[in-house]
Structures are given as C-alpha cells and as structure tokens.
C-alpha cells in the first residue's frame, strides 16, 4: 500500500510492470523461498534422478558419471519374467479399485440416507469411518489374523463348505485381488461416503415432497431423485479415483504378499521396491520400473482431469 506507485500514481507509467511487482511483492517471494526449496529438493531433484533409468547407475560414479545405456534398462525390464505379471496385476487391482471399491461408498451413503433415525445414522457414519484411522500395518495384521488358517473368516468360509486354508497364501487368480479389494473397501468405504452423505443432505426437500404427492414410492425416489442429484459428485469422484488409482493403497501389498503369491500379488510398486531395497539391488532397473509406473499414473491423471473438466466444470488442476 505504501509503494511508490500508490503514493504517486503517475509514476506507474515509468516503472516496468515486473519491476513494480518485485518492488511490491519482493518480501512475499522471499517468504515463498523455503517452500520452493522444499519442493525443489524433495520433488524436482528426484525427477532429474529419473535419468538413472537410462544409465548403468553406480553410487560411486554418480548421476553424471555413470554409463549411459539408453533404453536398455527398459528392454531388460520388459524381458524380465516378473515384470509383465506385475503390470497385469497392477491393472487388474486398479480396475477392482475404481469399480467395486468405488461403488461401495456410494451404496453406503444411499443406505445411510434412508435410515429413519438421525441419531442411528450418525452412529453408523462414525463407526464405518473408524477403519480409516487404523494404520496400514494394523489393517494388514488383522487381515492375516482373520484370513489365516484358523482365522475368523476362514472359519466362516469353512462353514460354507470351502476348504480350510491360509487364504493369503492361495495364489489362484482372483483370490488375492478380491481380498485386497475388500480390505480397501473396509478401510475406505466409510470415509468415502461422507462426501455423498453431505451431498444427499443438501438435496432440496421439496423434490421429495412433490414426488410423494405424485405417488412415488421410496425406491423410485432414491433412483429418480436422490441418485440423479448426487450424480455430478459421483462422476467427479470417479474421475478423481481413476486419476489416483495407480498411485495409492499399494503399500498394503508389501505387508500382505509372500514369495508364493508373487504371481498374483506383485504389482509395479512392490516390484520397484524389491528391485531397490530387496536382496538384489538394481537402482537403475527399479527407477525404470518406477518411471514406467509414474508415466501411466500421470497419463491417467491428466486424462481423468480433462474428462472431469468436460463433465462437471470442476477439476483438480
């Protein structure tokens, strides 16, 4: 407010707009410096580190000194017999995540909105929200406990006529994916339903009233009023989920899988992890795999965001 341009308006003509901006906001840019340093160091420099994917990286030689290999790491990656299963599993599990794990919170919200007692509905919301606060390590320990040879869920499945076994050690195709998806639902459904419940609570009551007067029953009202009203938010959340599907929730696999289930459980994230921090370390190969995963994730995010902007005029960016 006290800058020259405000005190002497005619001086504005003489000052270059950028110079004027720096004069006025220089302190602000200085305040941003720590933030910029943080993001450059922990986000942008690692992006430069991606060049490791194209060279035979050795710690001694450093990033600039290591031998340049071009695309050879990627060829090695694709030819490795662990990579293609990992890629397939990542796609399948992402698909499970954006279908079943996405629908669950919507359904939960619709059911909760139909409860007659408001107090009970709040109880349901709080208790289904609770698993979100339980840590990944604990969730996976609980899963091992319940799906193990003498676990609660195993007992239940035995009562239904299935063979008693450690379900997490079973490497027949859909089993691990279903388990992982159910765990994701257990953790996330309550938390995910909050936004839909809020949207349903915001629907104008007149719509329902008019429908009742016209003779609509409850089922019809849910599908003809409630659902269409929250549809824009559902679409928005869906595109958001598509964008994030390749990024989050995979550290649980590190805790759940075992060598005997690598065929079905291994995904790009765990593959990258094992290549870097497992028994055989190959930083270059791991970075290549990480880069591959990052490129798919970014593509998905951009596509979903573009769709989102078209669909709802809301976007993440």
């Amino acid at each position, binding site marked *: 407010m006290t800058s020259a341009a405000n005190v002497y308006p005619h001086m504005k003509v003489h000052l270059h707009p950028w110079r004027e*901006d720096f004069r006025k906001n220089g302190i*602000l840019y200085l*305040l*941003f410096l*720590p*933030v910029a340093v*943080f*993001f450059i*160091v*922990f986000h942008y*420099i*690692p*992006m*430069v*580190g*991606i060049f490791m994917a194209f060279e035979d990286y050795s710690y001694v030689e450093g990033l600039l000194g290591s031998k340049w290999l071009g695309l050879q790491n990627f060829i090695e990656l694709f030819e490795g017999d662990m990579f293609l299963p990992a890629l397939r599993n990542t796609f399948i599990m992402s698909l499970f995540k954006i279908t079943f794990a996405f629908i669950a919170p919507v359904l939960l919200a619709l*059911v909760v909105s*139909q*409860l007659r007692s408001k107090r*009970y509905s709040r*109880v*349901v919301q709080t*208790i*289904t*929200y*609770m698993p979100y*606060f*339980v*840590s990944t*390590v*604990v969730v996976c*320990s*609980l899963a*091992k*406990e*319940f799906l193990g040879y*003498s676990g*609660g869920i195993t*007992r239940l499945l035995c009562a239904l006529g299935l063979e008693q076994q450690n379900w997490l050690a079973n490497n027949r195709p859909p089993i691990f994916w279903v388990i992982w998806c159910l765990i994701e639902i257990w953790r996330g459904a*309550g938390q995910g339903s*909050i936004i839909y419940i809020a949207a349903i609570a915001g629907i104008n*009551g*007149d719509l*329902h*009233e008019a429908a009742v007067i016209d003779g609509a*029953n409850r*089922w019809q009202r849910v599908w003809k009023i409630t659902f269409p009203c929250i549809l824009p938010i559902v679409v*928005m959340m869906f595109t958001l989920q598509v964008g994030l599907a390749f990024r989050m929730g995979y*550290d649980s696999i*590190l805790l759940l899988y075992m060598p005997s289930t690598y065929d079905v459980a291994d995904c790009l994230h765990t593959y990258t992890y094992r290549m*870097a*921090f497992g028994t055989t370390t190959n930083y270059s190969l*791991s970075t290549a795999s*990480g880069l591959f995963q*990052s490129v798919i994730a*970014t593509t998905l995010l951009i596509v979903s965001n573009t769709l989102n902007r078209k669909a709802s005029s*809301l*976007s*993440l*960016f």
Partner: protein
Amino acid sequence: MKSKVKYREGMVDKPTPLGAAADVLIVLFTVICIFICVIPVWHTFMSSFSDGLILMSHEGVVWKWIGRFNLGGYKYLFADSSIIRGYANTLIYVLGNIACGLVVNVLGGYVLSRPTKLKGFLTMFLMLTMMFSGGIVPTYMVVRALGMTGTVWSLIVPGCTNAMFIILMMNAFRMVPESTVEAAHLDGAGHITVMFRIMLPQAMGIGMVTIINTAIIAWNAWFEASIYVTGQRELWPLQLWVKQIVANNQEFLNYTNPDYDRYLIQYAVIIGATMPILIAMPFFQKRLQKGSLAGAIKE
C-alpha cells in the same frame, strides 16, 4: 415448512408392509456394516486379554477373552524399552511433521493467496509435483545425499506436506475477508504479522484439516521408516515395531520353557498402536467433516 420437517423424520410415507420390510432390511444392512467394522478390533482387544496357550490353538473369532483374564501381554509390551522408544519416536515424528508442515503450508498458502504476478507460475510449480513424481528410488537418493538417512530428519522433513495441503491452505486464506488484511496493513503490520496473527486464526478451520491429516499420516507411517532408518532400531516408529512383532511372534516358542503370555504381545501392540488414534477420532472427525468439504476442490 412443517411437512418438510416431517419428511425428514420419514413420516410422509404411508406405513405399508413392504415399506416396513425395507426399513428392516436397511437397518439390518447397516448393523452388518457396523459389525464388520468393529469385529476385527474387538477380536484383537479380547485376544490381548486371553490365555496365551489356549489362544494359540483357538480357531475363529474371539468374542470374549479365553481362559482367565490376563494382562500378561501388556506387561511384556510395556516392559520392552524398544516399544516405549517407538512410542516416543512416533510422537516426535508426529509433532515434527505437524510443525514442519504447518510452516511450509502457511508460508506457501499465504504467498499464493496474495495477488502477485508470479502467482500462476508458483501454483503450477506446486501442481506439477502432484502430477508427476520421481518415484521412491530417486527420492531415496536425494534423502541419502542430504545425509538424512539414518537420522530423525528423514522421517520429519521430506514427507511433512504436499501440494494438496498448500492449495487447501491457499483456499483458506483466500476466504479471509480482504478488509481485515488491509486494516492490519494500514496499522503498520508486516506480512509475518498479517499471516500468523490476522489470517491464520481465521483460516484455522481448514488449517486444522491439514494438521489432522498430517498427524494421521505420520502416526500410521511405516514405509518411509522401513527404507530410511532400516538399521537404526532406536529410531523406529511404533508402526514398524508392530510389523516386526507380528511377523516374528512365533520365535519365543524356540525357547525350552516358553512363557505363553509372550504370544499375547502381538495383540497388545496392535491395541496399543490403534487405541490412541481411535480415542482422538471423534475430535478429528468433527473438524475433518467441517473443514474438508469447504476447500478441497478448486473451481
């Protein structure tokens, strides 16, 4: 108006047998949901008070403690100095992440909320980090090159915030009425004063959302610790101990005269690592619901 209130109580519908059946089904469904959410934690809670030897051969869910009521698992847990150390470490990491994150979030959010010429560029600068990441290996390399691996800092600084939190904070600052900021500037307040004493108190609703999320992430984090401080057990957070104890819990059976209370420690440690956050949850829930819907999405 009256009828609207009545609708919300669900009184508009004529009571029909089919409607009643639907109500029963809906309530039943939610009861099952509650059951599924609570049982795993309940099972662990009850197991932690059971008799170790009988529990080992028990099959299925533990509805009520088995054998005599037994606190042996907790005795083992709290006698273990490394677990206590784990608690202390987790606490340090949570507080460190909150403090570090708050500074970055507030500084970033404040600057982005001001009308500067570089605002668009700086926002894009942050947004890019959400769209693309170098991956775990290059990030690990940077943290190692900074000499942070094997120290407390590797678990406090790199993960203390992300672009999303700063954007959230920016939106919060934008909602602060400009008149209060101008008045403060006229009274001679500098940027720091305005940021912390004028704007932050008004933006604290969303500020709390970022703080709580940071706290939850830090409390539950294990992966970063498993790669950054692998060898330094004295720096392990609680969650890594939970992982370790659950994975290696059968080892005590190799002793000649095993104390079966030792088996209970895996249940006790899960309860010990989960209860604090579940107790804090009602407090968190209220603030998260209030704040997260307000500033999450940019139009």
